[in-house]
């Protein structure tokens, strides 16, 4: 759980760009409609799938498709959870990095803002340039590791906030 110090104020909550989530969501949606497409394709070849099903085939396929959509619904929210819980929180005192590696793997690091030595941003590709997202690298004093928020929305603004050039409660 992320807890703030007394009187600590959040300046910025930065997550990955919505496009990253949308791209993953598109994959899940395609997976969701796949059985429906498969049924249509199989039927178009003249295959009567219902002959292989004892009992009421319509009810069987209803149960199968509703079950499949339930799993797709869960997968959508697992993806959203990865997206939503992976973030950098910039406060007036600290920078908190929460990395959600999977449902059972999470890493939260906190370091003082005075330890920030350098912030660099990497924007690669046409989409990243048009939609304005990129990787934000934060180098700190006395730490061998580098803190990275990949595909961050508005990376220039995140950099300004981390370096202390912006004030106010904001979310990107």
């Amino acid at each position, binding site marked *: 759980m992320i807890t703030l110090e007394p009187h600590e104020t959040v300046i910025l909550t930065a997550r990955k760009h919505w496009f990253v989530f949308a791209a993953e969501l598109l994959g899940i949606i395609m997976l969701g409609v796949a059985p429906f497409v498969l049924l249509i394709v199989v039927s178009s070849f003249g295959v009567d799938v219902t002959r292989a099903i004892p009992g009421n085939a319509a*009810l069987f396929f209803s149960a199968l498709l509703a079950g499949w959509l339930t799993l797709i619904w869960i997968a959508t929210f697992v993806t959203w959870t990865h997206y939503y819980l992976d973030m950098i929180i910039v406060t007036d005192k600290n920078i908190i990095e929460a990395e959600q590696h999977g449902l059972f793997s999470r890493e939260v690091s906190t370091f003082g803002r005075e330890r920030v030595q350098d912030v660099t941003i990497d924007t690669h590709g046409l989409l990243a340039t048009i939609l304005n997202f990129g990787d934000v690298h934060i180098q700190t004093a006395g730490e061998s590791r580098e803190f990275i928020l990949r595909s961050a929305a508005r990376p220039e603004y995140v950099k300004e906030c981390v370096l202390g050039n912006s004030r106010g409660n904001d979310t990107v």
Partner: protein
Amino acid sequence: MALTNFETLLPLPFSPTILWIVFAVFTAVVLIMSIILLYHWSKYGFNGFYIGFASTLYLVGVTVLFSSTLISFFAYIQSL
């Protein structure tokens, strides 16, 4: 092989016992994943509004879809 002989192409196990086992596994997966997701949101969520909205949306969706599966499954078992 004629394409219309689907029952010989893909022999499916339609014993009610097997169907019940598959449904029990499916129910367990839905329950466990729901508990894991709700636990993550309540423990690690940082913005109460978005987490509350996501939880409500998830629970409404999963209840509707799981109920549809349950009703269709029971009706199908009765038709066997």
